[in-house]
């Protein structure tokens, strides 16, 4: 995690959120144990036909959208900046043995963990100290996509960070 300023206005807001979500004590991967490693956080939808794809569920943390049109200080060195980050939780009913038919429950469990992490007082204080205050997640309904015999559940959590007084000049 690092403080957001003029040098990292686009990269660090996402990195800070990824740091929180990728911490396995915050968000638990429902199909692996704590001793295992599996890549399950992406910046865009992974290619599910690729041999490197490690299966559902996975999380997509999209690049941030930034709005720098807010008011600025008199000398222009700081201004109010808004960021919006979309986090998608994608799970599937398709799987073997115990993993079959778990799409919705996995999606709910991961979304629960993400919301708990983003609303946690300590985590919010940590984000605030890095210049990312006022994050209030908005959660969409579950979107069910049918891919032949497979049902994919997708839920989108949009996290806006509004009105952060940010250094924008070196």
């Amino acid at each position, binding site marked *: 995690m690092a403080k957001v300023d003029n040098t990292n206005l686009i990269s660090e807001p996402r990195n800070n959120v990824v740091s929180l979500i990728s911490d396995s004590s915050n968000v638990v991967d429902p199909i692996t144990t704590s001793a295992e490693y599996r890549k399950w956080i992406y910046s865009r*939808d992974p290619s599910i036909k690729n041999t490197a794809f490690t299966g559902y569920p996975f999380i997509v943390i999209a690049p941030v959208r930034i*709005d720098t049109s*807010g008011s600025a200080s008199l000398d222009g060195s700081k201004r109010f900046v808004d960021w919006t980050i979309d986090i998608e939780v994608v799970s599937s009913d398709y799987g073997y043995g115990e993993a079959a038919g778990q799409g919705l429950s996995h999606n709910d469990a991961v979304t629960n963990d993400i919301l708990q992490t983003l609303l946690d007082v300590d985590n919010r204080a940590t984000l605030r100290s890095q210049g990312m205050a006022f994050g209030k997640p908005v*959660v969409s309904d579950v*979107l069910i996509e049918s891919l032949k015999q497979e049902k994919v559940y*997708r839920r989108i959590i*949009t996290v*806006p960070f*509004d009105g952060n007084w940010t250094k924008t000049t070196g």
Partner: protein
Amino acid sequence: MVGQRIKISGLKEAHNFLINVPKKLDKYLSKTNNDFMEDLKNEAIAMAPEDTGELKASIVKEPVRKGKNVKIWKVVVNAPHGIYQEEGFTPHYAWIINSSKMKTPGRYWVEKWTPFMKPAFKKVEAKYLNMLKVSTKRALAN
């Protein structure tokens, strides 16, 4: 549901708030619409079937009318075969002269189509609703 607490004291402040709300809503929702159409275009390009790449390259975002302050956009598929990929067709023999899969030009049986605009819309729709909630809150708060 959008929740927003607004504190107004005095008639002048109430008057200013009421005057400014439509302008702010217009500003924020227009930006959201632009972002949504950009997402829709990108998703449609990702989902469109690819052979020569002509279909993907022909998907563009355009303003609904020409002008300086246009706030309504549309996603347009310029390739003429786009509509058949989207809506389907009766299987038939077709002359194919430009394809990366059928190297030899000739008469081929075509029976498969891949919709891309409707699935793309369905995928970004949920995100759009979230974006609308966020931008409405921003318009009311600022």
